[in-house]
């Protein structure tokens, strides 16, 4: 087990290095000069040259990469061209906001998804099952930015109950635990929750249906358990798989969503990434992509390790 753990962790190093090269190269493939968006259109050629030298854009790519990579290893991802603030501090703030949104979205998604899944699994092929299955199919397949806009139109534009954009009053991006801030998270969280809701509902429905078809359920009834007693057994049998799926879903939401965060101007990592692309903010773009990519590398590592720890049959030697 320890050997496997060490090996699996070491495997991530070349992956991470490869990912960082791709992140660096990717943004250079895009046409256009990052400096044109910050410099005034009538800037002199000399000033442009000066700025290019200052940001290091005049150096060969491999040298730019090595300097960037070396600093990245020390936690310094450079300075945002658009705001002049350090990329790391921008990212930390954005990740905090994404975490808040993801936490609310998973909470809603898991509760509803779990409920639909259990009901559908218990009353398989009934009207309730069809309804719950329909909801979860819609949840997985509806375009989320579209759902977000529809919610904004209904609850913000028409009814005026909830704010349409931002994470706090007056466009503030600092979070606080009060109603003024909380009401900003309602619509984006509902929009985002639709994804894990659908997936969790389908997973749990299949799990519950499978468990109920197993012989031991007959054994439970044979000893006189009532429905509630049987339910307890179903829950405990479903828990490991359901938790694994939920953990993975929470992980994905933590990565942020460019579309949903952009629709609601939610200042998280997805929104940051979108802005970096539009403003050709190279250091910010590289940094954000790198951190998100690393996040998924680590997420996969954790899932692999946890699975092999829970299930002794997964012996990958």
């Amino acid at each position, binding site marked *: 087990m320890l050997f496997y753990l060490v090996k699996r962790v070491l495997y991530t190093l070349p992956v991470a290095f490869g990912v960082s090269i791709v992140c660096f190269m990717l943004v250079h493939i895009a046409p256009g000069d990052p400096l044109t968006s910050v410099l005034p259109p009538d800037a002199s050629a000399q000033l442009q040259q000066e700025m290019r030298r200052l940001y290091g854009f005049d150096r060969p790519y491999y040298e730019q990469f090595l300097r960037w990579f070396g600093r990245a290893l020390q936690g310094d991802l450079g300075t945002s061209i658009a705001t002049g603030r350090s990329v790391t501090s921008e990212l930390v703030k954005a990740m905090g906001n994404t975490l808040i949104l993801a936490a609310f979205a998973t909470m809603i998604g898991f509760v509803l998804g779990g409920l639909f899944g259990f009901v559908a699994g218990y009353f398989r092929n009934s009207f309730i099952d069809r309804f719950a299955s329909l909801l979860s199919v819609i949840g997985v397949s509806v375009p989320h930015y579209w759902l977000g806009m529809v919610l904004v139109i209904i609850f913000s534009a028409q009814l005026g109950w909830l704010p349409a954009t931002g994470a706090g009053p007056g466009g503030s991006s600092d979070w606080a635990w009060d109603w003024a801030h909380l009401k900003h998270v309602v619509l984006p969280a509902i929009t985002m929750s639709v994804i894990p809701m659908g997936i969790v509902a389908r997973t749990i429905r299949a799990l519950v249906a499978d468990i109920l078809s197993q012989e031991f359920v007959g054994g439970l009834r044979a000893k006189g358990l009532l429905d509630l007693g049987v339910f307890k057994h179903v829950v*405990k049998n479903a828990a490991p798989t359901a938790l694994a799926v939920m953990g993975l879903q929470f992980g994905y939401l933590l990565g942020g969503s460019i579309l949903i965060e952009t629709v609601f101007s939610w200042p998280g990592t997805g929104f940051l990434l979108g802005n970096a692309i539009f403003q050709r903010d190279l250091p910010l773009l590289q940094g954000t992509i790198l951190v998100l990519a690393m996040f998924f590398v680590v997420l996969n590592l954790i899932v692999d390790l946890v699975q092999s720890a829970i299930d002794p049959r997964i012996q990958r030697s």
Partner: protein
Amino acid sequence: MSVSPIVSVRDLTVTFKGPPDVHAVNGVSFDLAPGEVLGILGESGSGKSVTLKTLLRLLPEKRTTIGGTISVAGQDVVALQGRALADYRGRVASMVFQDPALALDPVFTVGQQISEAVIRHEGVSKAEARKRALEMLERVRIPSPARRLDAYPHEMSGGMRQRAMIALALACRPKLLLADEPTTALDATVQIQILLLLRELQRDFGMSVIFVTHDIGAAVEVSDRLAVMYAGKFVETGGVRDILRDPRHPYTRGLLAANLHGAEKGTRLEAIPGAPPALHEAPTSCSFAPRCRHAEERCHHALPPVVPLGEARNVRCILAEAARQDA
């Protein structure tokens, strides 16, 4: 029979709604006295397991139609619903399943699964129920029972799991134990231990047992009476010795002839030709006739008569009728 029976089944029919419909049990009647052991013998698909599961009403409610009457310890089992049905299960009648690896919940310990039943039926405290679970594990002679109380089913061997299953089934002292091929999934060496244990516990607790199997040896080992089942009917019933010594139904004879015990090495085992019928319709003639070498014209047109031959001995065949007239 002088004592009033604990189980009384009359004209039991069980039909599974299709498509296609399956008439699994087609008119089964029998009585079982307190402390008596009835072995139901039959091949796969003969309806023996369905009969047993119907006695505990374990078949899927929506797809199953039950006809006739079942009375166990004075309760009308067919009419039981909801809480009353749950009260009946496990306390009046309980079941030992064929494969304990499948019939026990894999994520609860054996102790939890036994205590749960005790708490459900007797409303005792957790500690009290755990004590009972320990007693039961000792009773079925599981080695180091205190440690096994906290073991999960997969941590036990097949024989030990079946012992635990028996402990669970008997934890609330049921009057009737239904054993559904309890030795089929076990190793040959373990089978006999489980049979001996069942017989011993049956005597100690004085309960009635219905033991379903396709293994004649096992049925003979534990039963007082035998019922041979074919195509959803009892074709022959009687005391174990009477049937072994003097089988009257051609199917029973075929079964006994196909037995490995006492077969001579090198000789060919006798097999019954053909296969059992698919019961998509309720039989209107003798179901065994197509495979029977004694079949006559009338066997294919009408149900054979039930011929009583002495006390609690019935044969569903025209041959028996002829034999009785001769006598």
